[in-house]
């Protein structure tokens, strides 16, 4: 290898690099142009008719989706809020029985599920952010899939817990295990709230799976799609509800 070759090879390398950069820029520009046409395609009625450019209209459409889901979540908060308030009223009236009943729930399953659900909150948040940037398709897909799997894991653990509860006769009715009558009210809430939460989670899993499948089939589907953010917000609410359910159902009577 002669010393005279080195500057030549360096020059050659630089031209090569510059060519690749140029190529990359055209590629990027093409993708941006492509993105603009995509933007038109992604606009829906009635947003497509707004008297602005497509980018602003698309931003408004995204804002519309976000506003819509936030209003819906406000109504969901009231739904669970009313349930929590009812629980509070019943618990204030029957403190002892609620403490006794609270000791019967399985705190291991409960804590495990809390950990699972909080982790899923991380994955869905990453998916939402990645989709918003529009650049990390594989990351978005992976996080969506992880979220769905974590959600399913929660339901499986919950299923084991339900089986144990039924075996221990913790279902309100004729063969209820605990002697204090108001303990039945606690378990009425336990079943009602956890089942309603599980239904919400089931819907969440379906939504996330749908996004993952669509994103897997159509490479452009997830990029900047407001549906990811909307689904993520819904998922966070389901998560947040559990954060209230955990102390409500698993911690009474366990403080000492």
């Amino acid at each position: 290898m002669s010393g005279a070759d080195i500057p030549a090879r360096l020059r050659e390398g630089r031209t090569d690099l510059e060519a690749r950069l140029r190529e990359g820029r055209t590629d990027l520009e093409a993708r941006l142009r492509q993105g603009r046409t995509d933007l038109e395609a992604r606009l829906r009625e009635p947003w497509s008719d707004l008297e602005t450019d497509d980018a602003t209209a698309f931003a408004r459409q995204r804002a519309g989706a976000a506003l819509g889901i936030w209003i819906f979540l406000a109504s969901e908060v009231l739904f669970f809020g009313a349930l929590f308030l009812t629980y509070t009223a019943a618990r204030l009236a029957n403190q002892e029985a609620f403490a006794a009943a609270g000791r019967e729930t399985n705190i291991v399953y409960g804590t495990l599920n809390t950990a699972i659900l909080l982790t899923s909150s991380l994955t869905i948040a990453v998916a939402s952010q990645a989709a918003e940037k529009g650049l990390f398709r594989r990351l978005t897909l992976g996080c969506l899939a992880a979220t769905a799997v974590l959600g399913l894991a929660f339901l499986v653990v919950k299923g084991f817990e339900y089986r144990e509860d039924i075996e221990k006769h913790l279902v309100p009715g004729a063969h209820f295990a605990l002697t204090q009558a108001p303990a039945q009210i606690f378990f009425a809430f336990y079943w009602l709230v956890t089942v309603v939460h599980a239904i919400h989670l089931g819907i969440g899993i379906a939504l996330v799976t749908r996004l993952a499948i669509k994103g897997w089939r159509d490479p452009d589907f997830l990029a900047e799609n407001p549906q990811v953010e909307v689904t993520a917000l819904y998922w966070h609410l389901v998560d947040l509800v559990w954060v209230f359910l955990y102390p409500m159902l698993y911690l009474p009577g366990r403080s000492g």
Partner: protein
Amino acid sequence: MSTTASPTGLADPDELDLGLPVSYLADGHSVRSWLLTTDHKRIAILYAVTITVFFFIGGAAATLVRLELATPEADVLRADTYNKLFTLHGVVMVWFFLIPSIPNTLGNFLVPLMIGARDVAFPKLNLVSWYLNLGGGLLAVAALILGGVDTGWTFYVPYSTVFSNTWVSLTVLGVFTTGFSSIATGVNFIGTIHLLRAPGMTWFRLPLFVWAMYTTSLMFVLATPVLAVTLLLVLAERTFGLPIFDPARGGDPILFQHLFWFYSHPAVYIMVLPAMGVVSELITCFARRKVFGYTFMVYALVAIAVIGFFTWGHHMFTSGMSPYAALVFSFLSFIVAVPSAIKVFNWTGTLYRGQVGFESPMLYALGFVGLFTLGGLTGLFLASIPVDVHVQDTYFVVAHFHYIMVGASVSAYFGGLHFWWPKITGRTYPETWARFAAILMFFGFNLTFFPQFIAGYLGMPRRYHVYPPEFQIWNVLSSAGAAVLAVAYLMPLGYLTWSLLFGERATNNPWDASGLEWRTTSPPPRQNFFGSPRIQGGPYNYHPEGVAPVHDQPRLPSRGSLT
């Protein structure tokens, strides 16, 4: 912008060669084009058809109830059938007619038109909302066919959870389903009004009808979930024997009433706020004057919506509540009368020195103001605890809420239906018949419900099919009124249907009204407007500077529709 731009920035359809169907009604004629539509105008028509059916189902039940009450004895119905009929009447009328009536028909049709939008923010959700409403209604009707419900429309526990052997669960499921429809509609309207207003349409340039829809939507979104929880608890208790409301097992039935009325008292405002919106539009148009105190009208709507959430306890003065709580709820119930009074004051202020025309929509609107005032004033009686204890569960209460919910809300619905009929269908209706029906409805209504105030004050209890003979005179009057009212409700069904087939083509703005919805063809095209609306001034501009009052000009039809 085209060169034909008018002051509002709309193109003139006559000067455009579009090659498209100019009316939303002509945009597809198949069943599929209706059942899978995402056009807010078509969905409004779908709602109108469903709620009309429910209105006449509920009305038929009411007629039978009044027939039975014409005599003190049980001549027509057995006690059991009577209970099922008044429950059916209440359930269908409240949940499937009154609550969706104005928001889902007129609101769906008009909100995008009035703010210059092409459609609502979530068109598909809008359609889903109709299917949920229909599904819920069908479940309730199925319960009726299978044998009925006897709990009353309030589903009070523990009767509804422990004792009743009727189709409570199915009915409750129906109402629960319809709740989703309400929430979806609320979300849609809020999104639309926030984000799809045309350039220049600021918040304080919105027509009062849009403001009314906005406040109603807030109530839909914030109140309905609590009802959903309540109904879910009733369902769970009935199906799985959970003990939440059952006093025999430590549950608390009063808790049910708190939860139920936390929704159902605001629901009264869900029924009456849209009516106020409609009436504001009608009065300003037929008095040819700007709404007196527009901003105060807006604040009053918002105040009613907010305070309406804090008055539910007045339904429970006799259910066992701490006297202090009762006092607070009494006070708050009085307070909610203040914004309502502001509205009545402003309507009369608008009429004062207006060039009032007595077309049929205006007759309905004036009827509304009278009936709403009477209903509202008797509401004050009920808000004061001693009087409430005296008339609790009597016909006084029945008369009061019918004045508000039927007298006010249904009058406004009919007024709005007549007012916007040319816009919705592109046809005019026979005005003489309409005026006659409006007047007949007012008299029939008062004849039906005013005697109930007296009977109730004298002590006639509600929900009984037999009663002491001394109340018969009032009941005969009331039943006679119900017959008149039935005729007055059937007449529009007749002549409006007639007008669909044989009515004249309507002009684009038959009333010379000022709203944006009149600046397009009758009926509007699929995309609502030709050109893009730009708003340059406040609403109700009936006397622009330098222009003679409109009543000086003859109201001639200018241009027919282009269907």
